């Protein structure tokens, strides 16, 4: 089988999440793990790696795309009924099995919420198999929050404790802070660590913009959180998604890894060993 040949997937629904992000539902069965990604093709424009943002326990398959360049702009033009090419799923994904029986602390910034939503949905669908479920979510302002309905619903639910930080205050954020000042604050996402108790027996799962990792990881290390219990998912330039084109390679000297096939999920130990992994 030619792994580079995309399959066709029909677009079922396109939903605007924020002015720059759209949720796209695809009619495709992937049998993926949360944290894995697909290579999405728009013929004539190109291919881009995109995380699957839905859990395998739910249908249909969803991706959340931020418009930043050529392929992503083309994806934003799609409407229901259109077709795209899909390859994958690729990458290692998060070890959902291994994390069972432990606390799960999800730390996300901005678009990082996309891959973590799959983890969150999975854990919610297997709620009893995990212990505490925490979501630390940093946003710029409410208008840029992804999955608003879902997050707001969770804010009021007992299944998951949601902590929210925002950088620019607006009405919604102000009200949320008033409502639950112990879980909502102004600032960057690392500020939220001051509000939670980290159980060193738990697992921390991180996804956010490249600059975020260094700060989150430092915060965790400062708290003596075991690095092998931190999972971070990385972004790098990618063309093949299967460890051939070598654009996504990280590290230097003795340790080099492919983000596409050795990752995109790496542990804190990797972060300590692989030069430049988290900057």
């Amino acid at each position: 089988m030619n792994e580079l040949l995309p399959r066709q997937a029909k677009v079922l629904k396109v939903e605007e999440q924020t002015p720059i992000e759209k949720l796209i539902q695809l009619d495709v069965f992937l049998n993926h793990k949360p944290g894995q990604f697909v290579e999405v093709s728009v013929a004539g424009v190109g291919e881009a790696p995109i995380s699957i943002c839905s859990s395998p326990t739910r249908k249909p398959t969803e991706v959340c795309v931020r418009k930043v360049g050529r392929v992503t702009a083309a994806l934003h033009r799609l409407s229901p009924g259109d077709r795209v090419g899909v390859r994958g799923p690729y990458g290692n994904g998060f070890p959902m099995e291994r994390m069972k029986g432990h606390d799960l602390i999800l730390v996300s910034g901005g678009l990082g919420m996309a891959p973590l939503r799959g983890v969150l949905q999975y854990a919610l669908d297997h709620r009893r198999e995990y212990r505490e479920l925490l979501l630390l979510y940093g946003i710029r302002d409410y208008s840029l929050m992804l999955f608003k309905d879902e997050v707001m619903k969770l804010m009021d639910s007992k299944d998951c404790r949601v902590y929210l930080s925002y950088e620019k205050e607006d009405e919604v954020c102000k009200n949320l802070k008033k409502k639950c000042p112990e879980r909502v604050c102004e600032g960057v996402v690392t500020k939220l660590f001051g509000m939670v108790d980290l159980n060193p027996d738990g697992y921390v799962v991180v996804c956010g913009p490249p600059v975020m990792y260094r700060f989150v990881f430092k915060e965790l290390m400062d708290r003596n959180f075991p690095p092998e219990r931190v999972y971070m998912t990385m972004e790098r330039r990618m063309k093949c998604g299967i460890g051939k084109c070598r654009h996504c390679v990280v590290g230097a000297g003795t340790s080099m890894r492919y983000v596409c096939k050795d990752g995109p999920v790496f542990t804190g130990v990797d972060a300590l060993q692989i030069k430049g992994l988290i900057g």
Partner: protein
Amino acid sequence: MRYAKLAKADLPKLFQSLKGYGEVFAPVEERGKLFFKKVEDLKEVKLAYTRTLLPPKKLFLQPEEEIMSYEGESYTEKLDGRKAVLFGVHACDINGFLKLDRVFLDAPRDEYYARRRENTLVVGITCVPDKYCFCTSVGSGYASGGFDLFLHDLGKEYLVRVGSGEGYRLSKQDYFKEAGEAEVKLAAKLEEKRAGKLRRKINLMGMGDLIETEGKEGWEELTAKCLACGTCNLVCPTCQCYDVSDLLTLEVRKGTRVRRWDSCMLKRHALVAGGLNFRPTVVERTVNRLSCKVGEEVRCVGCGRCTVYCPAGIDFVEMLSAVRGEAR
């Protein structure tokens, strides 16, 4: 391994048999430069040569190739099933194939590379090293596998090592003679003599760590002349990087997807949307390149191409010696 003997006078016969298998590509000299090119006659072939400009990997992973076409959103693959022969490949380049095999044949395998590799007979030949070769330092001066036939020049005849079923079938033809201990011993002696001529040495002990810890200033000095032109990657037999573009036609619904060799010394290699570049300067790119070649594992096969063809005259071995702290 199976061994056979081939009189040099019978080489044209072998060449004819190979032509019967498929198109033959062999080293050819034009205007003082060497290329692997399609040949019709053994006379066109340069049997004793140093190195070709592009490595013979170009037959398996083509410099620029259309991998599929599309119409609307439906893609059609463009696989190539042609049979071919690579005749006159040196040990370093064959070892280069083995390194690439691990990338492109490991699951999920790359169909384009895999089919061509499977459909191509590789016939190795004794090389003529020059002052830029250092294969012996990187363990690729001898090919233990990765070929169908390997011709060791013994003077009047060749010792033929047979490396595959197809090679076996070829070696069963009547112009091949039996060979054994004596020829193998002679070949080993000659190979050793040839290897002994290689003056260039590189010490790779702990090189990965040295590369990782070399300071920015050191790198800046070492790369001061680097033009970031990509040549070192593009001529390397073990570089695997490629880029992919969709080419649209005026018809808009139709077009092709092509892939092209890429170089990690170029801007776009680690650039992501929004302008963030994970390897923004020549220093990071050089560290990455060297790490890839000799840091984590030894992928360099010592062919010397990146040094010989660098427009800026940057020397791979000298650069690494400098990283070790040895005087140039």
